[in-house]
C-alpha cells in the first residue's frame, strides 16, 4: 500500500524529473515510501503530502536535493559487465599511439555513483596497460548525488562491494584493509578525481575526453532527455574516442552524432561529420 496520493506522487515525481531527468512511473509509488522514509523521520514530516508541501517552499532547496538524491539508484560494481573494459584495453594503446607525447589521456565516468567504474579503469591502467607507461591518464568521475560523490572520493568499499567484480589478486594488490572495509591505495586514488555534476547541464567547460562511460543512467530518462544528454556527451568526445553505454541502453533513434563501433556492443564513436544531418 503506497502512502502517497496521486497529487503527492505527481508533485514529487515532477520534481525529480525536472532536477535529474529521472522518470518515476506511478507503479514506482512504493519507492517514495521506502526511499523517503528517512527524510520524513529526520524532518518530522507526518506524511509524504506534508513533505511535498514543504518542497514547494522556495527555502526548501536542501530538502529538494535530499529528496532527489534519495530517489536516484546507485547500484554499481567493479568491472561491471566486463566487456567494455576489454574494449578499453584494446583501444587505449591506439589512442596512446595517436596522441602527441606529453598529452594526457582523459576518461570520464559520467554518473559514476560510488566510484567503482572509475576505479576499475584505474586498476586496469595500473595492471594491464604497462604499454602506456609514462602517459598521464586522468579519470574524472561525476554524479548528481553528493552522497555518492563523497563516497567515491573516500575510496572505501565494504566487503560485499569488493567481492562484486573485483578479482581477488587486484584486491590484495591495490587495497588496504581497514577493519571490515577496503580502501583503494593512494596511487590509484590519485588517478581519479570526483565531482558533483548533473548530466542535464552544460559540459563544455570540462573539455574533451578520449573515453566516456555513461552507463546505467540513461535508462531512467525519457527519450528527449536521453537524446539531449547523448548529444552533449558526443560534443565532448574525441573523434577517435569511444562512448560506453549500459547493457540496456543505445544511441539508436536518439542521436545521429554517435554510431555503434563495428563488432562491439554498447560501444559508440562519433559519427563522421558528413553523415550528420545537423
Amino acid at each position, binding site marked *: 500500500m503506497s502512502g502517497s496520493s496521486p497529487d503527492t506522487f505527481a508533485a514529487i515525481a515532477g520534481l525529480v524529473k525536472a532536477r535529474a531527468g529521472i522518470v518515476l512511473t506511478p507503479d514506482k509509488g512504493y519507492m517514495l515510501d521506502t526511499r523517503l522514509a528517512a527524510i520524513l523521520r529526520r524532518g518530522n514530516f507526518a506524511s509524504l503530502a506534508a513533505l511535498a508541501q514543504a518542497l514547494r517552499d522556495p527555502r526548501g532547496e536542501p530538502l529538494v536535493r535530499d529528496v532527489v538524491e534519495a530517489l536516484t539508484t546507485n*547500484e554499481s*560494481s567493479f568491472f561491471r*559487465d*566486463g*566487456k567494455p573494459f576489454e574494449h578499453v584495453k584494446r583501444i587505449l594503446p591506439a589512442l596512446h599511439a595517436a596522441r602527441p607525447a606529453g598529452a594526457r589521456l582523459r576518461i570520464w565516468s559520467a554518473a559514476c555513483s560510488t566510484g567503482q567504474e572509475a576505479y576499475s579503469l584505474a586498476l586496469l591502467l595500473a595492471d594491464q596497460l604497462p604499454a602506456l607507461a609514462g602517459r598521464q591518464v586522468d579519470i574524472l568521475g561525476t554524479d548528481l548525488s553528493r552522497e555518492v560523490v563523497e563516497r567515491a572520493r573516500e575510496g572505501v568499499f565494504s*566487503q*560485499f562491494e569488493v*567481492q*562484486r*567484480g573485483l*578479482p*581477488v*589478486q587486484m*584486491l*590484495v594488490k591495490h587495497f588496504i*584493509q581497514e577493519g*571490515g572495509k577496503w580502501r583503494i591505495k593512494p596511487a590509484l586514488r590519485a588517478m581519479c578525481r570526483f565531482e558533483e555534476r548533473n548530466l542535464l547541464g552544460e559540459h563544455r567547460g570540462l573539455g574533451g575526453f578520449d573515453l566516456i562511460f555513461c552507463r546505467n543512467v540513461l535508462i531512467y530518462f525519457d527519450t528527449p532527455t536521453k537524446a539531449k544528454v547523448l548529444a552533449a556527451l558526443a560534443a565532448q568526445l574525441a573523434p577517435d574516442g569511444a562512448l560506453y553505454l549500459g547493457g540496456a541502453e543505445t544511441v539508436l533513434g536518439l542521436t545521429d552524432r554517435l554510431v555503434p563501433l563495428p563488432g562491439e556492443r554498447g560501444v559508440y564513436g562519433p559519427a563522421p561529420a558528413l553523415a550528420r544531418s545537423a
Partner: protein
Amino acid sequence: MRRSALVVDDSRVVRKAARRMLEGFGFSVREAEDGEQALIACRAEALPNVVLLDWNMPVMDGITFLRAARAEFGADRPPIVLCTTESEFSRIVEALQAGAQEYIMKPFDATILGGKLAQIGLLDAAEVPA
C-alpha cells in the same frame, strides 16, 4: 559437458546453499565435509571444474587440503575458490600463495559466487545475476 563443482564445508546449511547456487549456474555438485573427504572425492572421480573450499573444518582444514591438492593434482588443477569467514588480509594472501585461484569472504550470494566463477573462466559474465 556439464561443469562440475565440489563443495567442501562442514556446515550442511552452507553446502546446501552453495549447491543451490551452483546448480542454478548449471553445475553438477558433489559435497565433502572436510579436506580429507574432499581429497578422496578428487581421487575417486574426474577432478571437478572447481572446488569451493571452506577454511576451518575438522579432520583436515581448507588450507591443508589446498596444499595437498596442489602437490597432488597440479598448480592450477582443480581451480580452487576459498569460501570462508576468514577475511584477514594475511589469510587471503596465504591462500593465494598456496595456490587458490579466487577467494570469497562469507557471507556471500549468487552474485558474488557467479562473479568469482566468471573470474576464473567457468561462467560467462552475462550469466551472473546483477
